């Protein structure tokens, strides 16, 4: 693979940081929770205190423990859904884009159908077909959500593949005699990595939304704790009306943070694809030293002021470099 020069801008680092934090939470959440989230023996509707950092619910459960436990299911489902959806999008999109003709017609029609059908109703319908037991299975739910979320990515990948298909190196592979399938998987797919990564992030984002929505309207099993279910219970007990912000705001904030983190990482991918967006190692410190303002306008090339210390001209000592 190409040696990746990962972007190091603050945006991306913040995004990565957020996601890492939540990933860790996914793993250790249930262990570090102070109480059993389903235990309802506490006093009800307590405000946040030292004993209950986020207070208690109307049924006497500890909210903070629910939050920590909820991370696992929410994020797990979202990631599974994202991965499966992206995989389907890859297969459908790249095949449609490269093969063209009838295969393209068929696959495009399939994607268009899935795009046109409203996601949420489809989800609800699919979900209602699931046996009760499976509604608590993160993987099954992830698959169901994936089925509604792959179409957009497939269209994007198809468009990209169609433009790549006409590139010289693909033609060169054909000339050598490479088989169609190897061209699609080995030659074309790696060139789609940035788009795939971006698609994956957005699909995960979508999946969180979908899962939380399902939970919020009560369609998932309430025996598995997730942030959506928390908000479901909060809403059912009129928490907003009695200003019990500590019940429904924290899960909402967590969802928003995860989404924001993904979006920030996506900026980084954009920078990676488009080198012009990269700062080329020019931090503001360096710019100030050279006497240049941060924003450089097109059409007015900056002229460096004379500095008192002569800059060392850095030359490689490769005398006689023969190319």
């Amino acid at each position, binding site marked *: *693979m*190409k040696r990746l020069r990962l972007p190091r801008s603050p945006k991306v680092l913040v995004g990565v940081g957020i996601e890492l934090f939540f990933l860790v939470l996914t793993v250790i959440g249930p262990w570090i929770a102070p109480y059993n989230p389903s235990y309802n023996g506490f006093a009800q509707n307590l405000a946040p205190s030292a004993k209950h950092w986020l207070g208690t619910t109307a049924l006497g459960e500890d909210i903070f423990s629910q939050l920590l436990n909820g991370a696992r299911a929410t994020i797990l489902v979202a990631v599974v859904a994202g991965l499966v959806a992206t995989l389907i999008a890859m297969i459908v999109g790249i095949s449609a884009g490269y093969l063209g003709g009838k295969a393209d017609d068929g696959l495009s029609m399939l994607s268009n159908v899935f795009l046109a059908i409203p996601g949420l109703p489809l989800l609800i319908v699919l979900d209602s077909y699931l046996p009760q037991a499976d509604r608590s299975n993160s993987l099954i739910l992830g698959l169901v959500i994936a089925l509604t979320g792959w179409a957009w990515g497939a269209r994007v990948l198809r468009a990209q593949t169609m433009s790549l298909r006409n*590139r*010289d*190196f693909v033609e*060169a*592979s*054909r000339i*050598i005699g490479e088989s169609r399938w*190897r061209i699609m998987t080995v030659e074309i797919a790696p060139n789609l990595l940035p788009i795939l990564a971006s698609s994956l992030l957005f699909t995960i984002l979508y999946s969180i939304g979908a899962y939380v929505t399902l939970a919020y309207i009560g369609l998932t099993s309430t025996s598995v704790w997730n942030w959506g279910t928390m908000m479901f219970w909060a809403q059912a007990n009129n928490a907003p009306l009695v200003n019990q912000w500590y019940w429904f705001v924290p899960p909402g904030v967590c969802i928003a943070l995860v989404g924001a983190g993904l979006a920030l990482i996506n900026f980084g991918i954009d920078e990676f694809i488009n080198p012009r967006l990269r700062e080329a190692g020019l931090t503001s410190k360096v710019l100030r030293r050279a006497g240049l303002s941060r924003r450089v306008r097109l059409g007015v090339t900056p002229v460096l002021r004379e500095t008192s210390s002569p800059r060392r001209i850095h030359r490689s000592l490769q005398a006689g470099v023969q190319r």
Partner: protein
Amino acid sequence: MSESPILEARSLTRYFAVRAGGGGRRHKRLVRAVEDVSLSLRPSRVTAVVGESGSGKSVLARMLARIVTPTSGELMLGGEAVALGTKRPLEYARQVQLVLQDPFASMNPVHLVRHNLERALLIHGTRRDELPTRLEGAMSRVALTPPDGFLDRFPHELSGGQLQRVSIARALCVEPKVLLADEPVSMLDVSVRLGVLNLVRSLAVDERMATLYITHDIASARYIADETMVMYAGQVVERSNGVTLIDEPAHPYTQLLIASVPDPMDPTSVSARVAADEGARQGVADVGCRFAPRCPSVMEICRSQEPPAFAVAADHESKCWRHRDGNVAMAVSVAAHEGSPRA
């Protein structure tokens, strides 16, 4: 003296149906990209095809490589007719290879150079343990040694000239008999072109490769060609053995081409203004001689009937009515023109 050809094309033609016309009315228009082109590629000989963009030379190359299917015509490989219209068999790819114009675009940017060459070898039956020797062999044939220094790099880390040699090495990996080179040096720096041109020539001379060299630069064609053809608007308008047609052009288009080439050795070329409508869009006629709208010595018959190829000399023919009666004299005198050419 010439051997039998390895790859022979007879009356290759390729039309493209294009939906043209705006303003609500869309009708199908036929673009005659290549029309009735015949050629023979023989071992140890470089055949040069000279033409501008739109002349059909690239489509011709792709038809010879069988990645574009001709609308009509025949191909003979090794004396046997090739079944066109079916999927191109691997065996054909083994015998006929094509090198493209842009070296950086011809290599997959996310893979090492090594990968690009290995695929060529593996597809055509090389065993994994044979790979290193075969790779080294291919690289040394294009003078890229030591091979690992180039193989273990990404394409963008090499220079244009080196990468084009790698492209040629990739084509050579499969041990073809025919090498088709579509403008192999056009995108390279000037100081690097000669090296690659010399390589192409040496492949023909030393390795008996039947070579097709496509270019818009007639001077480079003169440098390496054993046989030259000039294409205009999909047709071969002039062909000759060696480079006779460059030194003594017969067809008006060839004469125009040669007069247009900047030649510092001959400063009179500055004042050689040939009256011609630039007309790249409007200038190709559908009826009669394709070049008629731009031809400085056009006659009545040219507008209505397409000329056949007339023999101008031994091994030299030109598709122009001016040569009908065996008239070998220069068909057009280059007229000094007052003012600038109208377009």
